[in-house]
């Protein structure tokens, strides 16, 4: 009981807990969750959001350090572009492997996660290492590259606005535009999309792959610019993997990804406080997370089976 109270307090108990812990953690989860949801909607099993996030973080750090003397809006704009492009390029490797050599993206993206992680550890010991060359991390980016805070005295930053905007945009594109419709059609029925719709499915899949990587890359830039102000190995506590749970819990619906990211953000924020105050290891929260995801999936499966049965019964009744 004490543990649960601690969990609640850590997530929603105070203004600081909500604005600076829960929402700050929800921000990357929302962006990466969208990346995963978008890819899965098109039938692209992009498990590599973690690597794409790291690529985006690395590029954003490099740009922020190199362009530190420029005006702040320019530096931040450049960081966003760098993150987006690097994430898309990192996903693009897997996309090209799939298209040219038929390599399954489930394999290639997860492998590229490890490549990205090792690349980060090399970069922070090599080209981007802080000037003293003692710690395995980059130099801290100067004020011109630090993203504006949204509320005085809280940690919530520009990245949150971008994430919410991306969620709204993703929903709108999927539901209302011709491009979004093609993406959904390819994901729901590739063969019919190609035959009845004349859709170039491979091209659509390529596009989704790049967009998914771009969203994950943006999350990386947002973490560097808004929270860490430097690049180091543990910059992402596995956001790219949690994002899969975020997306699945939201049933791949962009609107629900926002709610789901908030829920996971609260759990992670609360877990830290639970460990501090009640001495309950934070892995308990991961167990809760896993149970939640499994129950949601089981429920969805159960409902699908029930619907199918009803259909069969009706068909036989005819």
């Amino acid at each position, binding site marked *: 009981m004490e543990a649960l109270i601690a969990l609640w307090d850590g997530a929603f108990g105070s203004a600081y807990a909500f604005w600076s812990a829960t929402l700050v953690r929800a921000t990357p989860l929302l962006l990466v969750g969208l990346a995963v949801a978008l890819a899965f909607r098109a039938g692209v099993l992009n498990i590599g959001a973690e690597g794409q996030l790291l690529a985006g973080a690395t590029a954003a750090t490099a740009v922020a350090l190199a362009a530190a003397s420029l005006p702040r809006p320019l530096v931040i704009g450049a960081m966003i572009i760098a993150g987006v492009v690097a994430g898309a390029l990192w996903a693009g490797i897997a996309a090209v492997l799939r298209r040219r050599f038929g390599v399954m993206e489930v394999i290639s993206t997860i492998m590229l996660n490890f490549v990205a992680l090792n690349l980060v550890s090399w970069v922070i010991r090599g080209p981007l290492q802080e000037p003293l060359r003692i710690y395995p991390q980059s130099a801290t980016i100067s004020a011109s590259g630090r993203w504006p805070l949204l509320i005085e005295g809280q940690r919530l930053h520009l990245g949150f606005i971008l994430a919410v905007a991306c969620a709204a945009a993703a929903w709108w594109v999927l539901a209302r535009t011709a491009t979004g419709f093609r993406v959904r059609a390819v994901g729901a029925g590739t063969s019919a999309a190609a035959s009845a719709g004349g859709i170039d499915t491979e091209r659509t899949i390529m596009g989704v792959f790049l967009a998914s990587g771009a969203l994950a890359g943006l999350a990386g830039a947002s973490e560097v610019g808004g929270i860490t102000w430097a690049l180091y190995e543990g910059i992402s506590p596995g956001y790219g993997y949690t994002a899969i749970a975020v997306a699945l819990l939201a049933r791949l619906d962009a609107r629900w990804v926002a709610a789901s990211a908030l829920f996971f953000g609260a759990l992670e924020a609360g877990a830290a406080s639970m460990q501090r105050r009640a001495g309950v290891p934070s892995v308990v929260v991961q167990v809760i997370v896993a149970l939640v995801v499994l129950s949601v999936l089981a429920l969805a499966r159960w409902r699908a089976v029930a619907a199918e049965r009803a*259909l069969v019964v009706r068909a036989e009744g005819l």
Partner: protein
Amino acid sequence: MTARLALRGVRKRFGATVALDDAHCEIRAGTVHALLGENGAGKTTLMRIAFGIITPESGVIEVDGAPVRFRSSADAIAQGIGMVHQHFMLVPAMTVAENVALGGRGRFDRAAAEERTRSIGRETGLLLDPGAKAGELGVGAQQRLEIVKALAHDARILILDEPTAVLSPGETTELYSWLRRFAAQGGTVVLITHRLEEALEIADDVTILRAGRTVLESAAPGLDSHTVIAALTGDPASSSDLAVAPQERPTAPTDSAMHASPAGGDAVFSLEGVGYVDAAGVRRLSDVNLWVAPGEILGVIGVEGAGQRELLRILAGRLQPTSGTVKRPAQVGFVPEDRSRDALIPSMSLVENFALAGASSRRGLMDWSRLDAETNQVINELDVRTSSADARVATLSGGNQQKLVVGRERAVARAALVAENPTRGLDIRASERVRREISARRGTPAPAVIYHSSDLDEVLAVATRVVACFAGRVTAVVPPATEGDRTPYAKALMGVE
């Protein structure tokens, strides 16, 4: 002398349709036995029963005079029966030797499997590289592998289902001479085929099925193709329940030449010297010349693998020919055979499925309110039974799904419609409705319709003109002098001149 393999009084129903009704067949040892019949006559079903894949409702199977019961194909294999299916059952990613060893027991011994493959090759002349990947073999070699697989299980009776459908003429000759040698050495061959002349040439005995019954059993020598065709099609007078009465039959445009362009030059489709070779290098179509005028309903007949699948997709613009020129409207409606895979997305709504047509060229925002209105129009016109246009297509019955497809394709392409087995799996009322909608002549000029069905009667009921596909060639069928005589069509399907 007892038969090597005998089936007697075999009955089998699939749901409401009777596939086999008192079928029988006796196959003598050391012979090549041809099993003939039209589409749906029950040939493949009968042989699947002989191979233990399907359990009959009644009937006796005897091997060398002793009654046997097959619970699965493993029992049939144990009796020395092997089957080469029309669609090969190989694991493409595995090597030849691994495929040969598949289905064996105990530990997999690569060296032994490779040696077994080689020794069968030496004994039989069916040479294969044991280390080659099955998926990388040509079609002829894949078929050799299927036979070697059966022989590796000591098959004495080989059942081949349409083995020459995918083979080139050279490969066909090679296969037939091998089958003759196999029979000469005491092996027994059952050949399911549509190619009548080839069958009469190679077989010792012939059994003919019609509508699930055995209607003719005879030695092949002395049997002429007219007798066979009469047996295949049955009494012409009683055959065609579905054919519309003569006064209702739509009249064909006067100029029905195949090769020349119509005088007015207003053909909706015109194909010149069209050929198609698929990704595996198999020639599916050669030198097709065809034109279709507005208002025509061109019936296309052909047995599986004869080339009509490719022809229909080329006409519908879903497949690019590898040679020749095609003139067709920019938009052609297409009702493909496998509607829940190629025409519809079951998890999406009716409106979204309607929007699928033309999805590739749409830009900007989706006009859902217009699409919704258009979908509702199709729902009303074709009487699609659904709770609403927003219901998922998966909740519709097959007939209503197909009505949606037909309505959509007609709406997006007014000049031309291609339909492939559009009534497959539908009940009689839905079939009737779908057939009527496809052959409806709406608008001026009326659309050109291409109609293929594996049910000959259905094609004859709607078509104003019929062409037949046989071994990749397309030929016009000269209409018979007497109404209801199906002989010319049966001949065209079987490749008899």
